[in-house]
């Protein structure tokens, strides 16, 4: 670590900014902490499946059970992200533009999935949507089963990811400025035309960013899902749960292989997010 901070110092000899002390100490500690706690363990994840070889790796992730779990995690995460984006835009609009009593409370409650432990959410959702639960019993009358089916996975994912979509869109909406809407009105647009052709398109980059974040969170989610999902192999078993199952069978390499696939997916999402942001910045 000393070496790295020394390099940092040598490449950037004292400039005016460096009148402040502590560069070496703070960067050194930051890098040490980051490398030892995050990067080295992540390296272990990437290296571990290599002992399987390419064909072994492929064999580990291409079993029907693993593929089904990946399809479930990513497919339902996508569905949840779309649902959350739709309602997230409506909720953000209501919070930013309307005035009504209890708005502050509603605004604060949006962050509940961030602060409520996932296990708590999990047992609550499971009880709520069970065939004899408050919501489950109503749905059962229409022959709909949610708990212990793939839809249970979807419900938990929608719960856990909602704040991402609302909180990404909300500040952009607040900064939109009323003038473009006024301009549209003076040009003869009806309110609905203004919303559909002016307001919504300007929100698209934020909506997509929120959607990507919601998707990433939902795909990796574990705690809130396992209670409601029923965890039937190849039906309602999510990929993170399968990792744990493999670990319990001491199949470290197999678990790591699934982990690598999920990590790669989150990297792709991270890249896509960065791409989105630069695309959005270009249109500003």
């Amino acid at each position, binding site marked *: 670590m000393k070496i790295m901070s020394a390099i940092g110092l040598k490449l950037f000899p004292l400039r005016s900014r460096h009148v402040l002390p502590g560069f070496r100490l703070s960067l050194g500690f930051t890098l040490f902490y980051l490398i030892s706690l995050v990067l080295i363990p992540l390296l272990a994840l990437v290296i571990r499946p290599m002992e399987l070889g390419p064909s072994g790796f492929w064999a580990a992730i291409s079993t029907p059970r693993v593929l089904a779990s990946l399809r479930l995690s990513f497919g339902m995460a996508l569905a949840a992200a779309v649902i959350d984006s739709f309602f997230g835009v409506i909720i953000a609009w209501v919070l930013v533009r309307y005035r009504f009593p209890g708005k502050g409370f509603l605004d604060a409650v949006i962050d509940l999935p961030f602060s409520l432990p996932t296990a708590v959410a999990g047992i609550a959702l499971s009880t709520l949507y069970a065939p004899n639960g408050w919501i489950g019993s109503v749905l059962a009358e229409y022959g709909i089963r949610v708990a212990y089916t793939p839809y249970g996975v979807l419900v938990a994912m929608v719960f856990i990811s909602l704040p991402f979509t609302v909180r990404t869109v909300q500040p952009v909406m607040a900064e939109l*400025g009323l*003038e*473009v809407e*006024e*301009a*549209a*009105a*003076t*040009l*003869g*647009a*009806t309110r609905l*035309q203004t919303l559909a*052709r*002016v307001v919504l*398109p*300007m929100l*698209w980059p934020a909506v997509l960013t929120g959607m990507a974040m919601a998707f990433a969170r939902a795909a990796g989610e574990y705690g809130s899902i396992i209670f409601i999902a029923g965890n039937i192999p190849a039906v309602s078993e999510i990929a993170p749960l399968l990792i744990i199952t493999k670990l319990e069978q001491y199949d470290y390499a197999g678990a790591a292989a699934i982990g690598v696939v999920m990590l790669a997916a989150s990297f792709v999402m991270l890249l896509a997010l960065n791409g989105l942001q630069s695309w959005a910045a*270009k*249109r*500003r």
Partner: protein
Amino acid sequence: MSLTVDSVAKKFGRFPALNGASFVAPQGGFVSLLGPSGSGKTTLLRILGGLEFADSGSVRFVDLNWLDMPARTRNAGFVFQQYALFKHMTVADNIAFGLKVRPRNRRPSSADIHKRVTELLDLVQLSGLEARYPSQLSGGQRQRVALARALAIEPRMLLLDEPFGALDAKVRKELRTDLRRIHDHAGVTTVFVTHDQEEAFAVADLVAVMKDGRIEQYGAPADVRRNPTTAFVSEFLSA
């Protein structure tokens, strides 16, 4: 057959923004509302555009009871200081917006819309930039697009709120000459808000000097300049 603003008043909460402003302008005239910030000139303009509502007073334009119409049906082109362009649309789409949102029976064909956009781009001297996005234009170019967009709907009235306020001196001068040329070409009644007296006198047929929500003096630029009727006007003009 004119624009008659009669005792228009407006309060924001307890703050009186307009205290009975009145003036008459001939149809096709070019009026400048001139005054320091807080004098109510922008509020008056926004009331003319239907973006704010007057508490009392009336406005008649031609034979229309102007304040009883919503912004959407007034057909008054409005140009904002910060352009208010639709950032996600190309220049051509921005200009065509007002035509495309018309109800189907009054909407021009897409060929006609294209033709109109081309004409307007020519008028504001931006030919060839129709595929650009607003972010790819300079401030002066953006305001030209905003002007073309407001003219595209063949407005009954053109309202401009400090349109050149965000631009540098050279571009301001260019644009103000062009604005006058475009006004003379289209013959549309124009109300122009500014705090810059040189600009007001250079571009308008009639200047209304405003203070504290009232019109202090109203007349042709030369008259106002030669014979300030109140201490405020003479002080403001000599500043």
